[in-house]
């Protein structure tokens, strides 16, 4: 019953402790942590699936105008469509038509653009602010730290969606407010990540060594601590991108992304299909699956990366 496994043969590179010492030990043994991680990833089927999904998603978004058979605003099937008869998938239209006669496949393809845009922008925004605040909190400590931590505690007290709703209400219903909202709710995560990393490394041997050589604190932080915090940030960033895509869809589902209803956005497309669920389920199915696949890609890759970088972590 016990999984206890005394290891008679010492494993390669004892990987424990804060990022600084890990790098050091790993390098001592000839392979950098990054290379070890890449090695693990290569043999991880789920990571490969995730990567493929991500590449697919990004390519579809980038090459949308060339991939989509129709313009998403065109209504090729206008004559055919009635409120009770919305054709599903056919040879002509692989994902069928929507309630206004537009080609669903093209709309789903173009919808990827918005999801990718919102996801990436809000992630970058949220991560930068979060990292900056976390660095400050970790570097200065004292009351700066206390204030930042109380702020993040407060932000985390309100569930993300509600917070986003609040922000969208203030900023008006637009794509910008969705991006800002999602950025804001992700700030606390990065704050904690950086702060945690800083605290862990503060007492690391290499930091003490470097400081004893007289290197000034700012240089220590920017030149040494920050690069060593990079991998957890990348992992978290990937995972956050997944949730950002889902949150963006949720917000546009609620109508908060405003803008021209003609412009395809997966979440909004799902909201519009409420009425047609019985007669035209394909209108809900395809955008929904698209969201799932996009988010899944980032989730799989992110989780695999997390496992690759921290051997003690299990999925």
């Amino acid at each position, binding site marked *: *019953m*016990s*999984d*206890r*496994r*005394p290891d*008679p*043969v*010492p494993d390669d590179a004892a990987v424990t402790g804060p990022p600084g010492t890990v790098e050091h030990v790993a390098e001592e043994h000839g392979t950098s942590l990054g290379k070890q991680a890449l090695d693990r990833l290569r043999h991880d089927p789920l990571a490969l699936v995730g990567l493929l999904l991500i590449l697919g998603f990004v390519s579809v978004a980038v090459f949308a105008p060339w991939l989509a058979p129709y313009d998403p605003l065109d209504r090729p099937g206008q004559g055919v469509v009635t409120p009770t008869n919305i054709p599903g998938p056919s040879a002509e239209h692989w994902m069928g038509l929507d309630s206004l006669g537009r080609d669903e496949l093209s709309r789903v393809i173009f919808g990827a653009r918005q999801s990718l845009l919102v996801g990436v922008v809000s992630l970058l925004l949220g991560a930068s602010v979060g990292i900056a605040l976390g660095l400050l909190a970790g570097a200065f400590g004292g009351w700066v730290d206390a204030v930042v931590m109380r702020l993040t505690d407060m932000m985390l007290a309100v569930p993300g969606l509600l917070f986003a709703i609040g922000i969208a209400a203030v900023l008006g219903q637009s794509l910008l407010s969705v991006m800002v909202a999602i950025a804001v709710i992700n700030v606390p995560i990065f704050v904690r990540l950086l702060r945690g990393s800083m605290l862990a490394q503060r007492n690391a041997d290499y930091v003490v060594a470097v400081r004893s050589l007289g290197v000034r604190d700012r240089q220590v932080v920017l030149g040494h601590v920050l690069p060593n915090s990079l991998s957890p940030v990348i992992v978290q960033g990937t995972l956050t991108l997944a949730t950002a895509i889902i949150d963006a869809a949720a917000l546009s589902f609620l109508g908060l992304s405003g803008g021209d209803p003609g412009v395809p956005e997966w979440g909004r497309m799902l909201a519009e299909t409420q009425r047609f669920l019985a007669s035209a389920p394909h209108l809900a199915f395809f955008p929904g699956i698209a969201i799932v696949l996009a988010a899944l890609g980032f989730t799989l890759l992110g989780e695999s990366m997390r496992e690759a970088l921290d051997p003690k972590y299990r999925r």
Partner: protein
Amino acid sequence: MSGATVLGGEIGRPSTGEPLLQVRDLGVRFTRRGRAPVQAVDGVSFDVAAGRSVGLVGESGSGKSVTSLAVMGLLPPRGVEVTGSVRLDGTELLELDDAARRDLRGADMAMVFQDPMSSLNPVVQVGVQVTEVLRRHRGMGRAQARDEAADLLQRVGIPEPRRRLKDYPHQLSGGMRQRALIAMSLACEPRLLIADEPTTALDVTIQAQILDLLRELVVGTGTSLVLITHDLGVVAGLCDDVHVMYSGRIVESAGRRELFARPEHPYTGGLLASVPRLDAPRGEPLRPIPGSPTLTRPWGTGCAFEPRCTRSDDACVGDAPPLETVRGHGVRCVHPLGADTPAEETR
């Protein structure tokens, strides 16, 4: 062939008849997906007579801990192959099913581990961790078990035992935790106690106390003791017979005095020589064993110690040296130390 040479132990009782524990040709192999299998223990045989104490000495990776886990039946069910024979009082343990071994563990044979902090359940009271053994194997009721537990804690030298019953592990000091663990292991008066590095994780001052405690308990109750350690000093103070292990095999077996006075295997000699001595002349350099434990040769291609041995030659490569009785010791070496002139001591 038996591995232990019994010579007048002063610690345990003199041997009578069948040994309590008979290990014959024990082998343990770990298999892992995508990696070569590892033979952690290979052809290990030794006896432990009733009331005697036996030491298993070696570095990490020698297989001493795995041997003890195999005897206790604590190896994981998957990914491990155990071969050979382990007989406790005539019963073949390796043929028993899980339920039967579970009945024996804690009652007839018990084990104490290295790190007392992590070996105790942090969210359960110490008292419960003692009474649970009593209630499981001796069917005691709650009140009776508590009384017995308090008594046990007292016997291992824990002051105010009644209060300690309600404490949680983090409220006890390292020494007290180890005492509590010893109490748990002896609660049902096992005939065999295996102690795996019981003092390594403790402060030096506490180490001596724990060792004294073990000695006192073993002598007093006639329990057989298997002591696993890398520390020769511990062995010297506590064990009647000693087996030295290297890379999964026993390389030397002898009585305590004989081993320390006239080691035969070069590895044993190296271990003894590497211990710093107070009476050595100043400025004399320390003498470690060259190389490291990873610098070994697989037994199938010769003697595993050969790369680090100053006495090795072509005879040491090819077939693994067999275990033979040489001058009263069991020795696995073709160039044992005693073969040299008596003047060349490795002291």
